[in-house]
């Protein structure tokens, strides 16, 4: 029998791996991957709780919404990263220090 706790522990592990990627990586694309991992952990939680809601299917529907939000975030984020690279010639977030030209 797979209980809710199994899903929660797995998604906590995935979330913390994503957190580590965001904190430790010095490459904007890998930071984006870390954000994706965290969103995926959240989707796993949505789906695991949604199993107990047959009336409105809230968990699964909001999991789908979260997938759409993540796709939009990646599209805009990659466009911004490419622009930043064109301007600064680096994608290390530590070296991108000023907002104006």
């Amino acid at each position, binding site marked *: *029998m*797979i209980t809710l*706790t*199994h*899903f929660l522990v*797995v998604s*906590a*592990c*995935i*979330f*913390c*791996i*994503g*957190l*580590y*990627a965001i*904190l*430790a*990586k010095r*490459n904007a*694309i*890998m930071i*984006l*991957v870390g954000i*994706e*991992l965290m969103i*995926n952990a959240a*989707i*796993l939680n949505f*789906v*695991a709780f*949604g*199993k*107990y*809601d*047959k*009336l409105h*299917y809230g968990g*699964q*529907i909001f*999991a*789908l*919404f979260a*997938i*759409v*939000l*993540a*796709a*939009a*975030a990646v*599209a*805009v984020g*990659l*466009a*911004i*990263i*490419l622009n930043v*690279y064109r301007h600064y010639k*680096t*994608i290390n977030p530590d070296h991108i220090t000023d907002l104006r030209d």
Partner: protein
Amino acid sequence: MEELLFYAFAALAISSALLVVSLKNTARALFLFFVTLFAMAGLFLFALADFVAITQILVYVGGVLILMIFAFMLSNKELLKDLQSTSSRFIAMPNIQSLLLSIAFLALMTYGIIAWQQQTPEWIMQNIKMNQVIQPTDNNISQLGVKFMTYYILPFEVISIFLLMALIGASQLSRKEGDE
């Protein structure tokens, strides 16, 4: 059997995610991210969310990851060179502060989950009592379609407009400067 498969998928997801964040080569890490996403889709199936699993594969693996790899490979050659670090080690040394912080966060969350385990929320108990739990034999996809078009019509429309806005914004941002 079911537990065995669940543990296999969970181990696959966690270990491949660990490898993704610890590999030095970004191209390798991105390709390995495929495995993580597939394993996560497999985990969704165990929560009886078949449509979400299919959408995960279609949108993430087919869209997001391909977009990342395209952006990675179509961009300048220096981008690739910049990412190769000076040391030739296959796996990057863990950054000790961030490792400490994420392990502490994991411990906190695990403690919270274990403490929470004794008291299941009211609505879950109620739904189990009223037999409102999704069964493996249910027809999820048609139910999801009906709910999208009736109960969740407003969030659905909002997210459609949002997606359109994000796509227009992304294409505007990635336009080359100078061509009017």
